[in-house]
């Protein structure tokens, strides 16, 4: 691992100041749980010149806001968030998704903000001997013709087919969460689904976070509270593996028709994929498996399968259909 300058921030103001204090702000990183950044540094993929440790910044609380929203501090650790009573009661989808990711040890270290900032698990991104436009812009993409079993099928570009590895973020996309960000030019608020980017011609940029900015919290809207929801993760082994396909879904049926439906997919795109095509087709329709299947097929229609990930197209369609059918049947209830 390369050497670096290390400093500890005590509040958000000092964190921003310390990050911009070094000679090159672009070579400075905030350090929280470290579960992804330290690993990437050991592999030489990330080589920051300075680290600003933010683990002592007081952003580790889950707060009830006056408007009924729930605010999750960026430094709330994954295990604490999954076990939080308000989250389990009102947003069980989020608790479920977190518990299906990583291991107990990692969830004890990893933070909410850090989970949003984790980078792809693409083998070629991690292999400094491979071509990767995300790691070295313009160098090519060895995943296109390589072993691309874990790679994206939706929203890809000829430059990058990396997939986003988070489970938590898939639930947050379905819950219409918002992200609060502070930075050199003040505070701003971003819709969760606008935060992560598609690769396009700049796959080196995972998110819309600008240099020097810090995620301070995530807001879960009261309107997403108490949804009839579930998180289904399909993976190569029953525990401690990244998703091949995952589905976060919520369904509200009244008078025999779908009033509200949320579907977000993991493992299929460069970002947590909100399935808005399927949702638009489902609103106002009766909650029947054949109608779910038609909507799922429409969502997956633009998919570009590759040699080793073509199975994901059918897997995603079937998982969406299954999860929504279970929700409609009153199974897969919030748990």
């Amino acid at each position: 691992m390369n050497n670096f300058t290390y400093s500890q921030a005590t509040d958000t103001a000092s964190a921003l100041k310390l990050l911009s204090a070094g000679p090159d702000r672009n070579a400075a990183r905030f350090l929280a749980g470290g579960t992804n950044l330290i690993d990437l540094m050991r592999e030489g993929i990330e080589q920051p010149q300075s680290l600003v440790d933010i683990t002592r910044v007081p952003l580790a609380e889950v707060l009830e806001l006056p408007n009924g929203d729930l605010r999750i501090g960026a430094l709330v650790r994954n295990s604490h968030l999954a076990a939080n009573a308000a989250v389990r009661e009102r947003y069980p989808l989020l608790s479920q998704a977190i518990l299906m990711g990583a291991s107990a040890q990692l969830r004890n270290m990893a933070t909410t903000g850090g989970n949003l900032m984790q980078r792809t698990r693409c083998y070629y991104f991690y292999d400094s001997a491979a071509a990767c436009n995300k790691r070295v812009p313009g160098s090519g993409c060895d995943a296109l013709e390589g072993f691309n079993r874990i790679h994206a099928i939706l929203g890809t570009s000829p430059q990058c087919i990396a997939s986003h590895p988070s489970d938590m973020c898939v639930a947050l996309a379905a819950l219409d969460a918002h992200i609060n960000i502070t930075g050199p030019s003040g505070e701003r608020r971003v819709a969760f689904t606008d935060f992560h980017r598609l690769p396009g011609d700049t796959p080196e940029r995972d998110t819309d976070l600008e240099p020097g900015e810090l995620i301070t919290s995530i807001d879960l809207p009261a309107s997403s509270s108490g949804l009839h929801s579930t998180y289904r993760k399909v993976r190569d082994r029953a525990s401690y593996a990244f998703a091949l396909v995952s589905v976060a879904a919520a369904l509200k049926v009244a008078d025999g028709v779908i009033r509200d439906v949320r579907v977000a997919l993991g493992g299929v795109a460069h970002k947590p994929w909100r399935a808005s095509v399927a949702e638009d087709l489902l609103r106002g329709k009766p909650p029947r498996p054949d109608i779910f299947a038609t909507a799922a097929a429409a969502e997956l229609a633009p998919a570009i399968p590759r040699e080793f990930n073509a199975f994901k197209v059918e897997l995603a369609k079937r998982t969406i259909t299954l999860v929504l059918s279970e929700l409609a049947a009153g199974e897969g209830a919030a748990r």
Partner: protein
Amino acid sequence: MNVSHGELQSISLHVNGVARLLAIEPRVSLLDALRDHLNLPGTKKGCDQGACGACTVLVDGERINSCLALAIQYQGREIVTIEGLAQSGVLHPMQRAFIEHDGFQCGYCTPGQICSAIAMLDEFRNGAPSAVTNKSTVNSNNVVSTELTDAELRERMSGNLCRCGAYVGIRDAIRQVYGAMKP
């Protein structure tokens, strides 16, 4: 604190009830600090990338992967390693149970398994949910009221790999300790 590039920093770590002083670069992991600077080689380095759990230690009673932790971040925290579990020469009940149930073959994953199992049982008793905990097993106070089923035990211990495949003995050892501490 501000440590410049390549500079050694004097820090104090509280390990197994004792304050230990060491001078390290900021890039030294908690795992390497324990093994190479504090002469506590019981904690093992397996994958060094957070995938195997061999480096599991307890920090303020919670299990973490010490390979993904920078030592400098853990000042002021209560760190317990496998060397700190026995009291006055008497093995911790989890250590005894691993011996009684053949919870290991080569032994390399064992310190991590034992530390992880101790914290896991605390989590379970405190009502922390797992991916296989469903609503029917949680009472109105949000406390897990079920038995520690094999499904629960396997899910909760999935962060510790054993390539010898001593999982059955590991499970039996953990189950014995869990049974012994129930009210």
